[in-house]
Every structure is written in structure tokens, then in C-alpha cells.
């Protein structure tokens, strides 16, 4: 890291009242200062400290997993998290869903001209904390500034690299008829937390986002049951969309039991009010696991033994179905499809 006594910039970044301007993306001195005093200081690690345009490291043994994701959430700060921690958790989780141990992340920022440096610093600090907690290093990055009106505050892209242990190979195409479908906890918390703070929709709720890094939970799970058939985090599109994706990939159907799906009363109530279905509402700290029926009890016990899986539940079974329908046995006693979401979930009129 840069030595304090070198004082390369005559004035420190004004993180209290300053704003991002076009010069911060120009590649010049202002950008160097932003990278140095904000990103470099927060994400500090030996690979990043070299300030090269890439990070060079020895590959770990075994197979690698790589993933990328972009974060464009609005609002940027919400109950239970912000875009910074979300950008870490989301990418860590995408790696974890391969059973991988996350190792390195990249971080690309697209910032709108005029964005408060104070807010940027808050986001970066939150990213740094989330990365430290997840045990991953942000080893390279990128900064671009777009003109005012051409962004939405800040967009973040993160790419992640992780190592997959031998004998672990969960994949969306491995669900088989008879397999058990498990979920790690209450669904819909993140989406409802975000909606509660949206402009013209604000409502009071104690629901906070479930945003969390799931690799620790996954490590315990693959330790107990190495042959988990499928792991997937039901983010955008919610549980329903995720299960439809898996059904399509694996060429199977599913039969879910509505009574078994964990949904908080407050989430159900908020969805009821807005005319939304909690099964389609986003999560950021939950996972779906599909395993052989004989492994289900052990896997469920393991999940419940981890803080991020204490409310885990077995919610259904994979069935043989050429049409790949995900069906739901309703609490009411009937049956219905849980279909793909068409477009965005839109509130009803009356």
C-alpha cells in the first residue's frame, strides 16, 4: 500500500461533501486518487496493492468456478443491506451454488456524475466488510463515470472465481424424479424489504433483506452430502422462477406443498396488499437444494444446524413430467401450476 508520508495528492478526497465528477472516470489523477483513497484503502490486499490492470495468482488445485453479475438495485440502501454488500453476496452465492469456495472477486463501478462521495464511501465500506466476512479478496477493478442522468447513482459489476472441491458437482440439469426439494429459509424477504423503501410505495415493515453470503452454509452441506444434485439461489424471479429453470434444465416436473414453504407472515401480508405472489419475490440470502430422497433428512438437518439455514424446509418432490410443470398443492386443497413469471410482477387494479 501507498505510504502515508508520500502524500501523492495535495488534498484528500472530500468524502463528506464531495461529489463524483467526470474527472473521476477520466483515467487521470482524480481517478487515481479515487482508486487510491477509496477503493484501495477499503479493499486492501496484496494483489490489489500492486495496482496493475490485472491480478496474477497461482490457480488452486482442482476445478475452478467463475461467475459475473451486475447490480442495478434501486434504492441503493435498503433495510438489511445496500448495493455494495449485495454485489459481494450475489457473486459469492453464484460461486457457492457450484459448491465452490469463493477466492477472488473483481469490482467494476459505473458511477453517475454528481453522486455523493459520502454515499460511495458507504457502499465501498459495506463491500469491503462483506468481502472480509466472506473471506474473499477484491483483487482488481474498474471505474467509469457517466454523465448526470445516464446512470442511476451507481451500478456495480462483480466477477468471482472459486475452487470446487473434488466429488462436488451440483448442476441445474441433475434433478431426477423422486428427488427432494429443500429451501434454506423464509422466502421473499429481500424483495419486500426493497419494495418497502421504493418511492411511491413506501410502507412500514420490520422485514429486512436476507442478503447474505451462503458459501459457509454450502460448505457444511456438501460436507454432509457431497452429491447434492442441484444448488441454486432464488434471486430475481423468486423461488417460482428458480424451480421452473431447474425443471426445464433437468427435463422434470415438481410438486410442491404450499403448507411447507416458509413465508413470513409480514411478507405474506405485504404481498397480499400489493397483489403479488411471494413465490416470485426476490431473495438474496436463500438457496434451493435438490438431492436424492435418501439424503434429504441428513441434508435438512445440516442446513438447520447452520445459522443461515435454521428455517430450512423440505418443500416438495421432483416428479416425472414431460411438460416440466412446477405444480403446487395448495393449502386450500386444490392444485395449481407455479409458472414462469411473464414480464414483471405487476400490482392488481382492484
Amino acid at each position, binding site marked *: 500500500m501507498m505510504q502515508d508520508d508520500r502524500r501523492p495528492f495535495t488534498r484528500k478526497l472530500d468524502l463528506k461533501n464531495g461529489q463524483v465528477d467526470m474527472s473521476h472516470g477520466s483515467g487521470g489523477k482524480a481517478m487515481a486518487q479515487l482508486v487510491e483513497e477509496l477503493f484501495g484503502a477499503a479493499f486492501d490486499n496484496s494483489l490489489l496493492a500492486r495496482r496493475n490492470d490485472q491480478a496474477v495468482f497461482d490457480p488452486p488445485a482442482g476445478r475452478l468456478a467463475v461467475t459475473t453479475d451486475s447490480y442495478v438495485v434501486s434504492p441503493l440502501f435498503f433495510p438489511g443491506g445496500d448495493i455494495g454488500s449485495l454485489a459481494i453476496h450475489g457473486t459469492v452465492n453464484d460461486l457457492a451454488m457450484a459448491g465452490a469456495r469463493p477466492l477472488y472477486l473483481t469490482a467494476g463501478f459505473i458511477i453517475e456524475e454528481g453522486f455523493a462521495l459520502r454515499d460511495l464511501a458507504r457502499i465501498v465500506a459495506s463491500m469491503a466488510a462483506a468481502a472480509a466476512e466472506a473471506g474473499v479478496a477484491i483483487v482488481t477493478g474498474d471505474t467509469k463515470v457517466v454523465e448526470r442522468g445516464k446512470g442511476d447513482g451507481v451500478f456495480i459489476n462483480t466477477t468471482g472465481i472459486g475452487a470446487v472441491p473434488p466429488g462436488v458437482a451440483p448442476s441445474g440439469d441433475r434433478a431426477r424424479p423422486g428427488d427432494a426439494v429443500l429451501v434454506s429459509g423464509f422466502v421473499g424477504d429481500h424483495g419486500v424489504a426493497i419494495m418497502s423503501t421504493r418511492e411511491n410505495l413506501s410502507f412500514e415493515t420490520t422485514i429486512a433483506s436476507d442478503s447474505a453470503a451462503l458459501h459457509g452454509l454450502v460448505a457444511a452441506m456438501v460436507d454432509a452430502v457431497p452429491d447434492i444434485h442441484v444448488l441454486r439461489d432464488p434471486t430475481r424471479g423468486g423461488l417460482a422462477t428458480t424451480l421452473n429453470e431447474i425443471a426445464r434444465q433437468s427435463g422434470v416436473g415438481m410438486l410442491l406443498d404450499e*403448507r411447507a414453504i416458509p413465508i413470513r407472515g409480514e411478507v405474506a401480508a405485504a404481498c397480499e396488499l400489493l397483489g403479488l405472489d411471494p413465490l416470485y419475490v426476490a431473495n438474496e440470502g436463500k438457496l434451493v437444494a435438490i438431492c436424492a430422497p435418501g439424503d434429504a433428512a441428513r441434508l435438512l438437518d445440516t442446513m438447520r444446524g447452520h445459522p443461515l439455514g435454521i428455517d430450512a424446509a423440505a418443500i416438495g418432490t421432483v416428479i416425472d413430467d414431460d411438460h416440466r410443470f412446477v405444480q403446487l398443492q*395448495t393449502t*386450500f*386443497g386444490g392444485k395449481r401450476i407455479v409458472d414462469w413469471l411473464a414480464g414483471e410482477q*405487476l400490482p*392488481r387494479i382492484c
Partner: protein
Amino acid sequence: MRYVDEYRDGDLASRVAAAIAAEADPGRHYALMEFCGGHTHAICRYGIEDLLPPNVTMIHGPGCPVCVLPIGRLDMAIELAMRPEVILCTYGDMMRVPGRDRTSLMKAKAGGADIRMVYGSGDALRVARENPGREVVFFAIGFETTAPTTAVALVQAASMGLRNFSVFANHVLTPSAIQAILDSPEVSATGTVRVDGFIGPGHVSTIIGSAPYERFARDYRRPIVVSGFEPLDIMQSVLMLVRQLNGGRCEVENQFNRAVSRDGNGKAQALVERVFELRDSFEWRGLGTIPDSALQIREEFADWDAERRWQLRYVPVADNRACSCAQILRGAKKPLDCAIFGTACTPENPMGSCMVSPEGSCAAYYLYGRWRDTPQRAKTG
């Protein structure tokens, strides 16, 4: 969730289902029309048809405000939205409805129109206050349920002297639509559609009460049960209809008595009366032009009437010929009877309005129920 879970209790449901099965005469068929799209949605979402005996069938009626709005009126909204000075505020359901030439508000928005999704007329008023340099138009649709909130917005805009706000009013009236169904050739003359009784729209009746349906029960000899929207409400209403039909009675009964009275909400009715008057005629998708079936803004509030402010003219547009929305809205066809259901017309790519709104028959059926009628392909290998 209190006051909700009680109405979704599976054990109670199976008891009501047993009562319906016991009381439904195996020698006759009971064809019941739920008028309201909210009921259609609940019937499909909770799998209520699975709990009914085969001789009690539900016919999905025209009660979805998105579905019954004709293409020409939607085109007027799109035309408004395309004006650079206008911000069009709309309920989310309207965004994907295809207009003429497969345009939609969603496509107009992508093309640069300033269209904002709102949850009610109050949100539109706020947008108007926050954008004094723009013309904010509220695209008001819905039955008697949403008309009072539109009326409130007009009264508020007038009292505030909010000159950059106006309403494009498309409110329609339930009794006129029920009458159109009963007078339709399928039901009255040819008898190709049998409707033995109606499940009446509960939300609408919270405003207008149950009294406006009494003439249908009397003149057309059809029992009507005004029903709530929870699945147990609907099950109980079916049982009440079966009992009326068995007893040869044709009355208006009120299952939804926790929210509905015979005379409804007088205050809301007075507000609607103050702001709106009957339109001479209004075209409904599927039901044709029906006199006195919709509301228009009174002269006193003319300054806030978008139709007058921009001299909008209604041009009727024929439905896509392959689309059976019109017959489906009248109960003359079921979604599966439409040639393009589930193929050219899906919720992702809707051709007709019934597939767009979650309360439309086709969308509800496609989203929740199509597995019932989709045969498994022969297994290979």
C-alpha cells in the same frame, strides 16, 4: 395472517366441498358464472375447481377492467403518452396490453414516452405536483371500485387549482355488463351458453351494495350471491347458489356481509355522482357498445378531463381475428377453445387482453390451470 388465513383453511374447504357434493343434484348441471376477474384469479390460484363435483362448473365472466377496455381507448392513452409534454400515469396492468399494430404502453415507454406506473390516483396527483412544468394525465380504468378514488383526485385537483393534472376516464359499470351478458345471443336466444347463477363481484358491491342486482334475479330468474374474494368465500357462495337453484329460488344473497351491505357506501356513491355522469354509450371489448355503461367527467370538472383538454377522438379498432377474447369475455368460449391460446398467445407475448391482465381468464388459466387439460406426451424409451 389474521382475517386472511381463516378464509384459506384447507380443512374447512374440504367440509364445504363435501356439502356442495352432497347437495348438488347428480341429475342436473349447475353452470355458475363468476363475473369478476378477482374471483377468476382466486378460483384458478387456489385450485377451487378441483374441489367441486363435475356437475358444478364455473364460467369465467367479463369482470376484468383491463380485459374489457377496447383497443381504441388504449390507443387514445398511447397517443396521449407520446406527447412530449405529457407524463401518463397508469396502473401496472395496462402496460402490456397490445394496442393497434401491436403497440403497447410498455413499447411506447421504451420508445421514449414518459409513462409512470402508479398504485392509485393519489400517486398521479403527487407526480403532477412534483412536475409543474409537465402535463400529468391519470389513465383511470376500473369498475365502480376504483371510480371513487378517481373522483377524489378530481375533487382535490380542482380544489388545489392543479392545472397540469387531468384524468382520462374509462370507468365502467357492472350492472350494465351483467345485463349485456344476459341479453347476449349466446345466453338469451341461442342458449349455447347456460348461466344458471352468478357469483356477484364483492369489491364492486362494497361501493354500490347488493341492491342493483335484484332486478336481474327478478327479471331474468338468475340467483346471485355477492361473494368475497378468499377461496372459502367463493366455495360458500357456490354452496349458496346450489341451494338456491335446488330450492327454485332466484334471489340476491350476500355472502360478503363483512364488507357489503344492501345499499353500499353512500359517501362514495355521492362522490362519484358529483364528479361523473353516465356516458351515452361505451364500447366494451367482447360485449359491444352498451348504452349508459360507463362514466364520463361532468362539465364542472371539464378542465381536468383529458379527453376534452386534448380533444381525443375514439376510433374503434377491430380485435385480432385469430383472438377469441370477445367470446371468452361473454363465457361463450373457454380459453382452451381459442386457436391461439398457449401458442401464439401467451403471457409473455399476449395477443389479446384476456391473456395480459392476471385477472383475465386466459392468463389465470394459463398460469394456474393449464396442466389439467394438457395431456402427457407419449413416453419415448
